Protein backbone atom coordinates (compact mmCIF):
# COMPACT_ATOMS: atom_id res chain seq x y z
CA UNK A 1 0.00 0.00 0.00
CA UNK A 2 2.86 2.39 0.87
CA UNK A 3 4.45 1.67 -2.50
CA UNK A 4 1.19 2.54 -4.27
CA UNK A 5 0.82 5.81 -2.36
CA UNK A 6 4.43 6.62 -3.15
CA UNK A 7 3.79 5.95 -6.83
CA UNK A 8 0.67 8.16 -6.73
CA UNK A 9 2.59 10.97 -4.99
CA UNK A 10 5.51 10.87 -7.42
CA UNK A 11 3.10 10.56 -10.37
CA UNK A 12 1.07 13.54 -9.13
CA UNK A 13 4.17 15.68 -8.69
CA UNK A 14 5.34 14.72 -12.18
CA UNK A 15 1.99 15.61 -13.70
CA UNK A 16 2.02 19.00 -11.94
CA UNK A 17 5.55 19.62 -13.24
CA UNK A 18 4.27 18.64 -16.68
CA UNK A 19 1.40 21.14 -16.34
CA UNK A 20 3.73 23.94 -15.19
CA UNK A 21 6.09 23.29 -18.10
CA UNK A 22 3.27 23.76 -20.60
CA UNK A 23 0.90 26.22 -18.92
CA UNK A 24 3.52 28.83 -17.87
CA UNK A 25 4.91 29.43 -21.40
CA UNK A 26 1.33 29.43 -22.80
CA UNK A 27 0.02 31.96 -20.28
CA UNK A 28 3.06 34.26 -20.51
CA UNK A 29 3.09 34.13 -24.34
CA UNK A 30 -0.66 34.76 -24.54
CA UNK A 31 -0.38 37.71 -22.16
CA UNK A 32 2.46 39.29 -24.16
CA UNK A 33 0.59 38.74 -27.45
CA UNK A 34 -2.55 40.18 -25.90
CA UNK A 35 -0.84 43.27 -24.43
CA UNK A 36 0.92 44.00 -27.71
CA UNK A 37 -2.39 43.61 -29.58
CA UNK A 38 -1.05 40.74 -31.71
CA UNK A 39 -3.37 38.05 -30.35
CA UNK A 40 -6.46 39.42 -32.09
CA UNK A 41 -4.69 39.22 -35.43
CA UNK A 42 -3.75 35.58 -34.83
CA UNK A 43 -7.22 34.47 -33.75
CA UNK A 44 -9.06 36.54 -36.38
CA UNK A 45 -8.76 33.97 -39.22
CA UNK A 46 -10.54 31.51 -36.91
CA UNK A 47 -13.40 33.82 -36.00
CA UNK A 48 -15.51 31.98 -38.58
CA UNK A 49 -15.84 29.26 -35.90
CA UNK A 50 -17.47 31.78 -33.56
CA UNK A 51 -19.83 32.88 -36.35
CA UNK A 52 -20.61 29.27 -37.20
CA UNK A 53 -21.57 28.43 -33.61
CA UNK A 54 -22.95 31.94 -32.91
CA UNK A 55 -20.61 32.36 -29.94
CA UNK A 56 -18.64 35.47 -28.95
CA UNK A 57 -15.24 36.06 -30.58
CA UNK A 58 -13.63 35.55 -27.14
CA UNK A 59 -14.43 31.85 -27.42
CA UNK A 60 -11.99 31.39 -30.32
CA UNK A 61 -8.80 31.63 -28.23
CA UNK A 62 -9.68 28.96 -25.62
CA UNK A 63 -10.93 26.78 -28.47
CA UNK A 64 -7.60 27.03 -30.32
CA UNK A 65 -5.56 26.42 -27.15
CA UNK A 66 -7.65 23.34 -26.37
CA UNK A 67 -7.43 21.96 -29.91
CA UNK A 68 -3.64 22.35 -29.97
CA UNK A 69 -2.54 21.75 -26.37
CA UNK A 70 -5.35 19.70 -24.85
CA UNK A 71 -8.47 19.72 -22.75
CA UNK A 72 -6.87 20.65 -19.42
CA UNK A 73 -4.88 23.56 -20.85
CA UNK A 74 -7.87 24.68 -22.89
CA UNK A 75 -9.93 24.54 -19.69
CA UNK A 76 -7.34 26.73 -17.96
CA UNK A 77 -7.63 29.37 -20.67
CA UNK A 78 -11.43 29.02 -20.74
CA UNK A 79 -11.57 29.74 -17.01
CA UNK A 80 -9.22 32.73 -17.35
CA UNK A 81 -11.33 34.10 -20.23
CA UNK A 82 -14.55 33.49 -18.29
CA UNK A 83 -13.12 35.30 -15.26
CA UNK A 84 -12.49 38.32 -17.46
CA UNK A 85 -16.24 38.20 -18.13
CA UNK A 86 -16.08 37.55 -21.85
CA UNK A 87 -17.93 34.25 -22.11
CA UNK A 88 -21.60 33.39 -21.75
CA UNK A 89 -22.76 30.11 -20.31
CA UNK A 90 -23.73 29.09 -23.84
CA UNK A 91 -20.23 29.90 -25.15
CA UNK A 92 -18.72 27.86 -22.32
CA UNK A 93 -20.86 24.82 -23.05
CA UNK A 94 -20.25 24.89 -26.80
CA UNK A 95 -16.46 25.27 -26.47
CA UNK A 96 -16.37 22.37 -24.00
CA UNK A 97 -18.49 20.25 -26.33
CA UNK A 98 -16.14 20.91 -29.25
CA UNK A 99 -13.06 20.14 -27.16
CA UNK A 100 -14.54 16.92 -25.78
CA UNK A 101 -14.53 15.49 -29.30
CA UNK A 102 -11.35 17.17 -30.52
CA UNK A 103 -8.42 18.24 -28.34
CA UNK A 104 -4.64 17.86 -28.17
CA UNK A 105 -4.71 16.94 -31.86
CA UNK A 106 -0.93 16.69 -32.18
CA UNK A 107 -0.13 14.75 -29.02
CA UNK A 108 -3.10 12.37 -29.15
CA UNK A 109 -2.86 11.70 -32.88
CA UNK A 110 0.91 11.09 -32.86
CA UNK A 111 0.58 8.76 -29.88
CA UNK A 112 -2.07 6.69 -31.63
CA UNK A 113 -0.07 6.71 -34.87
CA UNK A 114 2.90 5.39 -32.90
CA UNK A 115 0.65 2.51 -31.81
CA UNK A 116 -0.13 1.72 -35.47
CA UNK A 117 -3.35 3.68 -36.04
CA UNK A 118 -4.11 5.68 -39.19
CA UNK A 119 -3.46 9.30 -38.20
CA UNK A 120 -5.38 10.92 -41.05
CA UNK A 121 -8.56 8.97 -40.29
CA UNK A 122 -8.27 9.81 -36.58
CA UNK A 123 -7.53 13.51 -37.10
CA UNK A 124 -10.24 14.07 -39.72
CA UNK A 125 -12.87 12.04 -37.84
CA UNK A 126 -12.34 14.02 -34.63
CA UNK A 127 -12.40 17.39 -36.36
CA UNK A 128 -15.52 16.59 -38.40
CA UNK A 129 -17.32 15.08 -35.39
CA UNK A 130 -16.50 18.13 -33.25
CA UNK A 131 -17.67 20.56 -35.95
CA UNK A 132 -20.92 18.69 -36.66
CA UNK A 133 -21.76 18.02 -33.01
CA UNK A 134 -21.08 21.59 -31.89
CA UNK A 135 -22.94 23.04 -34.89
CA UNK A 136 -25.97 20.81 -34.31
CA UNK A 137 -26.12 21.61 -30.59
CA UNK A 138 -25.51 25.33 -31.19
CA UNK A 139 -28.73 25.45 -33.24
CA UNK A 140 -30.64 23.98 -30.33
CA UNK A 141 -29.51 26.29 -27.54
CA UNK A 142 -31.24 29.62 -27.82
CA UNK A 143 -29.02 32.70 -27.92
CA UNK A 144 -31.05 34.55 -25.29
CA UNK A 145 -31.01 31.72 -22.81
CA UNK A 146 -28.17 31.99 -20.28
CA UNK A 147 -26.99 35.17 -21.91
CA UNK A 148 -25.49 36.63 -18.71
CA UNK A 149 -21.72 36.66 -18.33
CA UNK A 150 -20.67 34.31 -15.59
CA UNK A 151 -17.23 33.97 -14.05
CA UNK A 152 -16.36 30.28 -13.99
CA UNK A 153 -15.06 30.73 -10.45
CA UNK A 154 -18.62 31.02 -9.16
CA UNK A 155 -19.50 27.56 -10.35
CA UNK A 156 -16.30 25.92 -9.17
Amino acid sequence: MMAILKEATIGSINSIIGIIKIIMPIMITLQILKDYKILDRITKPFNFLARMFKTSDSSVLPLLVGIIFGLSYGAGVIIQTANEGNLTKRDLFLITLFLLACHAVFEDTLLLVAAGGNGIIIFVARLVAALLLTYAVSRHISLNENEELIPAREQA
Partner: protein
Amino acid sequence: MLVASIKTGFKKGLETTWLLAKVIVPVYFVITILKYTPVIDWIAYVFSPLMAIFNLPGEAAIILVLGNVLNLYAAVGAITAVSLAPMEITTIALMLSFSHSLFVETAVTKKLGVSSVKVVLIRLGLALASGIIMGRLGGLV
Protein backbone atom coordinates in the same frame (compact mmCIF):
# COMPACT_ATOMS: atom_id res chain seq x y z
CA MET B 1 5.30 46.85 -20.55
CA LEU B 2 6.99 43.56 -21.40
CA VAL B 3 7.89 42.95 -17.75
CA ALA B 4 4.32 43.72 -16.72
CA SER B 5 3.00 41.27 -19.33
CA ILE B 6 5.35 38.54 -18.16
CA LYS B 7 4.33 39.15 -14.54
CA THR B 8 0.61 38.98 -15.35
CA GLY B 9 1.13 35.87 -17.50
CA PHE B 10 3.16 34.24 -14.75
CA LYS B 11 0.43 34.94 -12.20
CA LYS B 12 -2.26 33.56 -14.51
CA GLY B 13 -0.09 30.50 -15.13
CA LEU B 14 0.27 29.85 -11.42
CA GLU B 15 -3.47 30.30 -10.84
CA THR B 16 -4.26 27.87 -13.63
CA THR B 17 -1.68 25.34 -12.42
CA TRP B 18 -3.12 25.48 -8.90
CA LEU B 19 -6.65 25.06 -10.23
CA LEU B 20 -5.73 22.08 -12.41
CA ALA B 21 -3.59 20.52 -9.66
CA LYS B 22 -6.49 20.64 -7.19
CA VAL B 23 -8.59 18.68 -9.66
CA ILE B 24 -6.01 16.29 -11.07
CA VAL B 25 -4.09 15.18 -7.95
CA PRO B 26 -7.00 13.56 -6.05
CA VAL B 27 -8.17 11.79 -9.20
CA TYR B 28 -4.61 10.64 -9.88
CA PHE B 29 -4.47 9.01 -6.43
CA VAL B 30 -7.76 7.21 -6.98
CA ILE B 31 -6.80 5.79 -10.38
CA THR B 32 -3.32 4.76 -9.20
CA ILE B 33 -4.90 2.73 -6.40
CA LEU B 34 -7.52 1.38 -8.84
CA LYS B 35 -4.71 0.18 -11.10
CA TYR B 36 -3.59 -2.27 -8.40
CA THR B 37 -7.04 -3.74 -7.81
CA PRO B 38 -8.67 -6.36 -10.06
CA VAL B 39 -11.36 -3.80 -11.02
CA ILE B 40 -9.81 -2.93 -14.41
CA ASP B 41 -9.59 -6.62 -15.36
CA TRP B 42 -13.21 -7.20 -14.28
CA ILE B 43 -14.48 -4.32 -16.41
CA ALA B 44 -12.49 -5.62 -19.39
CA TYR B 45 -13.92 -9.12 -18.83
CA VAL B 46 -17.49 -7.80 -18.71
CA PHE B 47 -17.04 -5.76 -21.89
CA SER B 48 -15.16 -8.34 -23.96
CA PRO B 49 -18.32 -9.84 -25.63
CA LEU B 50 -19.26 -6.30 -26.72
CA MET B 51 -16.08 -6.02 -28.82
CA ALA B 52 -17.71 -8.03 -31.66
CA ILE B 53 -19.85 -5.01 -32.64
CA PHE B 54 -16.63 -3.16 -33.46
CA ASN B 55 -15.24 -6.17 -35.33
CA LEU B 56 -12.59 -6.51 -32.61
CA PRO B 57 -11.42 -9.55 -30.67
CA GLY B 58 -12.51 -9.80 -27.00
CA GLU B 59 -8.97 -9.09 -25.75
CA ALA B 60 -9.28 -5.58 -27.18
CA ALA B 61 -11.54 -4.68 -24.24
CA ILE B 62 -8.55 -4.31 -21.91
CA ILE B 63 -7.05 -1.66 -24.24
CA LEU B 64 -10.24 0.40 -24.19
CA VAL B 65 -10.63 0.06 -20.44
CA LEU B 66 -7.02 1.06 -19.73
CA GLY B 67 -7.30 4.06 -22.07
CA ASN B 68 -10.54 5.25 -20.52
CA VAL B 69 -9.70 4.62 -16.87
CA LEU B 70 -5.99 5.57 -16.98
CA ASN B 71 -4.76 7.36 -20.11
CA LEU B 72 -3.71 6.99 -23.75
CA TYR B 73 -0.16 6.02 -22.80
CA ALA B 74 -1.43 2.98 -20.88
CA ALA B 75 -3.67 2.06 -23.82
CA VAL B 76 -0.85 2.36 -26.35
CA GLY B 77 1.26 0.06 -24.20
CA ALA B 78 -1.57 -2.47 -24.22
CA ILE B 79 -2.07 -2.22 -28.02
CA THR B 80 1.45 -3.50 -28.56
CA ALA B 81 0.77 -6.40 -26.16
CA VAL B 82 -2.36 -7.64 -28.01
CA SER B 83 -1.79 -8.71 -31.63
CA LEU B 84 -4.21 -6.80 -33.86
CA ALA B 85 -4.54 -6.16 -37.61
CA PRO B 86 -3.78 -2.59 -38.81
CA MET B 87 -7.48 -1.88 -39.45
CA GLU B 88 -8.35 -3.11 -35.96
CA ILE B 89 -5.72 -0.81 -34.47
CA THR B 90 -7.22 2.15 -36.34
CA THR B 91 -10.70 1.25 -35.07
CA ILE B 92 -9.50 1.07 -31.49
CA ALA B 93 -7.32 4.19 -31.86
CA LEU B 94 -10.28 6.15 -33.25
CA MET B 95 -12.47 5.06 -30.34
CA LEU B 96 -9.73 5.99 -27.87
CA SER B 97 -9.20 9.38 -29.52
CA PHE B 98 -12.79 10.32 -28.65
CA SER B 99 -12.88 8.75 -25.23
CA HIS B 100 -9.82 8.53 -22.96
CA SER B 101 -8.61 9.56 -19.48
CA LEU B 102 -12.26 9.83 -18.47
CA PHE B 103 -11.66 10.36 -14.76
CA VAL B 104 -9.07 13.12 -15.05
CA GLU B 105 -10.58 14.94 -18.02
CA THR B 106 -14.15 14.75 -16.69
CA ALA B 107 -12.99 16.23 -13.39
CA VAL B 108 -11.41 19.10 -15.34
CA THR B 109 -14.49 19.78 -17.50
CA LYS B 110 -16.65 19.75 -14.37
CA LYS B 111 -14.77 22.93 -13.40
CA LEU B 112 -16.26 24.46 -16.53
CA GLY B 113 -19.75 23.82 -15.26
CA VAL B 114 -20.63 20.98 -17.64
CA SER B 115 -22.24 17.95 -15.98
CA SER B 116 -20.03 14.87 -15.61
CA VAL B 117 -22.75 12.52 -16.80
CA LYS B 118 -23.20 14.52 -20.00
CA VAL B 119 -19.43 14.63 -20.60
CA VAL B 120 -19.01 10.88 -20.19
CA LEU B 121 -22.09 10.03 -22.27
CA ILE B 122 -21.02 12.33 -25.13
CA ARG B 123 -17.52 10.85 -25.24
CA LEU B 124 -18.60 7.22 -24.92
CA GLY B 125 -21.31 7.88 -27.52
CA LEU B 126 -18.74 9.23 -29.98
CA ALA B 127 -16.42 6.28 -29.29
CA LEU B 128 -19.26 3.78 -29.75
CA ALA B 129 -20.51 5.36 -32.98
CA SER B 130 -17.04 5.74 -34.49
CA GLY B 131 -16.12 2.18 -33.45
CA ILE B 132 -19.20 0.68 -35.09
CA ILE B 133 -18.68 2.66 -38.31
CA MET B 134 -14.94 2.00 -38.50
CA GLY B 135 -15.44 -1.68 -37.61
CA ARG B 136 -17.89 -2.05 -40.51
CA LEU B 137 -15.63 -0.19 -42.96
CA GLY B 138 -12.66 -2.27 -41.84
CA GLY B 139 -14.66 -5.43 -42.51
CA LEU B 140 -15.26 -4.33 -46.12
CA VAL B 141 -11.60 -3.75 -46.93
